[in-house]
């Protein structure tokens, strides 16, 4: 039997798992579950949980399992004992994503830039327009601040997640 840790809101709950080859017994919150888990391909699993059948897609990231279950995407934070230990030693982990970068929500072509470097902007103010799939998509500021740097220019093609504009406070 091994202890795993499910993160619920801010705390970790212990969960006991034992078994091998996909035939598992899981105990959590005083309840016991029989899990029969069989991989189909790299991402897909057939799971029979106490006779309930699920076709599950799962991707595992460091401390989380990303699931698609009955058209429902979910992220479940789950740590094995070693990860639990590391999280206690190293603390909360990575920094939160910088709020001051405006990134491209899609690949496309920069049509117009509607602000200038140094300009003070308000939340919701249009920053630039990206064309993709024949539609013009206006990108607006999530929060107010000053435009620190504009990293793109009109007619430039950008990929998803490229940094477009940096905004300072």
């Amino acid at each position, binding site marked *: 039997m091994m202890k795993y840790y499910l993160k619920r809101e801010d705390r970790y709950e212990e969960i006991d798992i034992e078994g091998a080859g996909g035939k598992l017994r899981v105990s959590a919150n005083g309840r016991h579950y029989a899990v029969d888990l069989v991989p189909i391909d790299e991402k897909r699993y057939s799971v029979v949980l106490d006779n309930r059948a*699920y076709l599950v897609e799962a991707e595992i*990231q460091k401390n989380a399992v990303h699931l698609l279950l009955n058209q429902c995407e*979910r992220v479940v934070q789950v740590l*094995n004992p070693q990860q639990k230990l590391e999280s206690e030693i190293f603390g909360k982990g990575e920094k939160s994503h910088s709020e001051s970068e405006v990134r491209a929500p899609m690949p496309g072509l920069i049509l117009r830039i509607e602000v200038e470097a140094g300009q003070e902007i308000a939340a919701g103010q249009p920053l630039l327009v990206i064309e993709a799939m024949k539609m*013009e998509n206006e990108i607006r500021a999530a929060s107010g601040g000053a435009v620190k740097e504009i990293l793109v220019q009109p007619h430039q093609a950008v990929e998803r997640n490229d940094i477009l504009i940096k905004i300072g406070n």
Partner: protein
Amino acid sequence: MTKIQKILIANRGEIAVRIMRSCREMGIRAAAVYSEADRLSAHVLAADEAYPIGPAAAAQSYLNMDAILEAARKSGADAVHPGYGFFAENADFAQRVEDSGLIFIGPSPQTIRLMGSKTEARKTMMDAGVPVVPGAREALASVEEAQQVIEYLGGFPVLIKAAAGGGGKGMRLVREAKELPRALEAAKGEALKAFGDAAVYVEKFIESPKHIEIQIFADRRGDAVHLWERDCSIQRRHQKVIEECPSAILTPEKRAEMGQVAVQAAKACRYSNAGTVEFLYDREGNFYFLEMNTRLQVEHPVTEMVMGMDLVKLQIRVAEGHPLPFRQEDLRPRGHAIECRINAEDVFNNFVPSTGKISYLKLPEGPGVRVDSGVGLHSEISRFYDPIAAKLVVWAETRPEAIARMKRALGELRIEGIDTTAPFCLRVLDHPEFQQGNFNINFVDRYWQQMQQSLPDEAEAAEIIAAAIAYYRDHQSASTLSPSENANHAPALSPWKTRALKTMR
């Protein structure tokens, strides 16, 4: 009577593939055209012949008239099918096809030109006794002129619309004067991109109407019928997403009346081939001519399923000169059909286009399910074209059964590598107001925000399963894992977005 032997399909994506299917069944060879971005696209793989027509940007390929006409000449095709979008409603293109001695599968260039000019179309319709939305018919030269016209119409809200357009491109709703300059500029820009013509005009905005359109069909002798209506009110940014036939709310009397008006409209512009008369249908049951689409519609399959006919085959036969093979009273509509557009869009991120390569594809099957896709495994969805990846269409005996069937089919559909509108469609189908037919074109604006926030169920099962998978991966024998997958579960794979989605089951 001509017998068409080969058709050049001046389009791409799902509609090109759709047309090729009918060609194949009729023993007609199908010639594709393709841009550099589309060498491996589904319509090239499905074609009998394929002709390159230029770079990825549509303006240099699918909107390159010379290249397409040269491909048609080279292929030896005797007809050209324009699909929808691109040149489908371009009278010059139709004219040049005919001047090359080929059959244009659609109405005459004159009819296209007449209906393509929204101002001329309005005038023709008014003369034919078809009710229209109050508005000005002239292209707007300036912001000042637009402001004058809007005052004349009784003020805001108004719609700015592309004179050459359709499908929501180059269209802007303006509720206040201060929004006008930007909206005009944006509409003109989109209109130019989409249709090669920046002209826009303005009309009165009807609050919260349904979008109900009538499919008509006319032969070259002038006989015309209507093939019932489609309710296309589930739209976002003027783009239809869910369409159905028949409408949940139309009475047989109202259907007959609107159908009769649509046939009048067709006859007034000497229509031939497939066309659609779009109406706004207000809360009092008044309907207003919106525009006539002189082509096959994206949503034609719902009509096909209810009527039991193949509209593309019918288009080809009528283009060959055959009379309509039925009269209005011969039609035998049956049941209810719904279409969901499976667009490559991230519905949880303001519907931004989602590009990528399709890495996994599982299509729904079983009774009453039809898929018209323009993609396959390994297909690349690029930023250059329309986001329609596939259309999912179902038929059932009744509307509630059709809704249940569509939910079932969407549940079976799995596309990986891009985000799609499938989760959006599932939520709409689940919404009580949709189920009761109580919706208009504002449905999405009104409900989408709250629908996104629906809570997941089966949260407990998800937690247990996630933990079991983590344990399973940690305890797999090292030899069955690739080196990079070994310690601490697997490394970060493609990052999924964190979303709390409501299940359909």
